[in-house]
């Protein structure tokens, strides 16, 4: 059978990175509210600054945020392009089902009434 239903490494990494609720909330806020300093993010994150910094580091590694240093402050912003694998995944699922439909039709042709 010629089906493929597999997540790419990029999709897997993206889902894993965003699986953590605190990380997801930080990323969401940056998406909606634009660039923020670590301090500003910590003020409403409900966790300590070192924890926020750790999560931002993981988001940065996944390419989901970018940092910019200005004086003693580090500003973070969301990188929307990094969400592309999520869209690809939906598209690939559609593709997967299209090819399942093809095989289903082939089977129906072979089946007895």
């Amino acid at each position, binding site marked *: 059978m010629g089906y493929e239903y597999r997540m790419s490494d990029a999709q897997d990494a993206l889902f894993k990175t965003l699986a953590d609720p605190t990380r997801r909330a930080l990323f969401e806020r940056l*998406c909606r509210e634009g660039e923020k300093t670590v301090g500003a993010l910590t003020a409403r994150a409900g966790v300590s600054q070192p924890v926020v910094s750790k999560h931002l580091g993981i988001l940065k590694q996944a390419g989901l945020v970018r940092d910019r240093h200005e004086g003693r402050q580090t500003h973070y912003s969301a990188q929307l392009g990094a969400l592309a694998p*999520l869209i690809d995944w*939906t598209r690939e699922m559609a593709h997967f089902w299209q090819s399942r439909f093809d095989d*289903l039709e082939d089977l129906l042709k072979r*089946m007895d009434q």
Partner: protein
Amino acid sequence: MTDTPTEMRSVVVEREIAYPTEKIWRALTQPHLIEEWLMKNDFKPAVDHRFNFSADWGSVECQVLEVEPNRTLSYTWGAHGLESVVTWTLTPTSEGTHLRMEQSGFQPGQRLAYGGAKAGWPRFFANLEQVLARIE
């Protein structure tokens, strides 16, 4: 895809098929037939029945949600740490059957790989719907 912010992203595939609903229903519900076009499985058309689809790359954990013979079949689809619902709808037409598959409600599976992620995914997708639409 949907514009409604409260809804999740979903995948819909529809096709007109030149066979009666009864025949398609058999292909959707008999394990040896399902295997021919989808994957190996231990499916039973019984509500709450838990089953797996398996392939060389891994398996999909499922549970039957709804069975209405020749009309509707729906089951959960848990794979890659995300749980979704697959719903088959069969509508008789003059030519045969209109077959529709919708996979929706992607959310973290309770017992699957990425523990710790609770109900946040649906909200996340909903919140980012516009963001995602922009980069599409």
